């Protein structure tokens, strides 16, 4: 039977191939934060507390546009709604743990750690359940350290990079790479098309609610599409 240390190590190993994709994203998050006018301390606190790149970049974009805090928080919640889905999926595997485990483990829930851990819990056989939370902890800590280091590099670089490099364009480029695997069938493609078009049309809405409106419309469109009989992929 595997020891805790071995399971923790297996969790670390499982996320290693994902780090080259995360590091540049974290550097961009740090660069953008400083470019938006955040201090180094604020930029690091943002990565440290939120620990979710897409929402951090969306938040910085809204800060740059002068949105009010309520809309910024609403947008962050919308972008991070997927964590509630991951939370529901992982919940049965964490119920034997006390609250002193559950609260910090929830904090380490990100896309890559979710994917790696749920795969082990569901397909790892009897061995996969042994010390399962240590596997998750190994992946989560590794991803967290990578994210904070990458942000720090971005914050440090940000001070020495000229302002006219259009670096804010890196934000949609990163989101593109996250969008591709989400387009897994017809209903998801409809959700994306609707979300993109509505967000574009709604971009001039008061209070910068364009992203929230676009995302909400896309979700409804996807749900309507998968309901139509005979159109299931």
């Amino acid at each position, binding site marked *: 039977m595997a020891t805790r240390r071995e399971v923790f190590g297996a969790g670390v190993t499982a996320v290693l191939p994902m780090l080259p*994709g995360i590091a*540049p994203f974290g550097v961009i998050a740090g660069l953008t934060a400083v470019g938006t006018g*955040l201090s180094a301390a604020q930029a690091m606190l*943002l990565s*440290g*507390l*939120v620990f979710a790149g*897409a929402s951090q970049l969306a*938040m910085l974009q809204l*800060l740059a546009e*002068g949105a009010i*805090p309520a809309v*910024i*928080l609403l947008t962050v*919640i*919308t972008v*991070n*709604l*997927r964590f*509630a*889905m*991951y*939370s*529901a999926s*992982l919940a049965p595997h964490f*119920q034997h743990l006390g609250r002193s485990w*559950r*609260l910090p*483990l*929830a*904090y380490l829930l990100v896309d890559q750690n979710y994917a790696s851990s749920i795969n082990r819990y569901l397909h790892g056989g009897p061995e996969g359940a042994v010390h399962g939370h240590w596997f998750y902890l190994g992946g989560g800590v590794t991803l967290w350290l990578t994210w904070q280091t990458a942000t720090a590099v971005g914050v440090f670089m940000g001070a020495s990079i000229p302002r006219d*490099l*259009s670096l804010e364009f*890196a934000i*949609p*480029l*990163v989101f*593109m*790479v*996250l*969008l591709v695997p989400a387009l897994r069938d017809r209903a*998801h*493609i409809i*959700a*994306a098309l*609707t*979300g*993109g*078009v509505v967000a*574009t049309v709604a*971009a*001039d809405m008061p209070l910068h609610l*364009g992203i929230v409106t*676009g*995302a909400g419309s*896309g*979700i409804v*469109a*996807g749900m309507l599409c*998968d309901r139509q009989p005979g159109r299931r992929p």
Partner: protein
Amino acid sequence: MSETTLWLTIVGAGLCTWLLRLSFIETWRWLSVPPLLDRALRYVPAAVMAALVVPALVRMDGAVNLSPDNLRLLAGLLAAAVAWYSRNVLLTLAVGMGALWALQAVT
């Protein structure tokens, strides 16, 4: 936005995100996920990412611009092709930013 408000917004964003992560892990014993919510959540990544990408590419100077004058749209389409086939963040960033800088240099 004042400095204090900015600090509070950052902390608030962290708190909201943590509560979303904790949601069903903490309530699972006495609350099952409503099926409608479960279905809605499936479409969050596709809808959200597209809502973030598309306006950034097709809008220029505060209006929709689908002409070749919109250099971000051109560079973005090239990067989208790279993202589609490679799914690689670093490669997509390199091609997209490189294309934008090249286009800015020649126009």
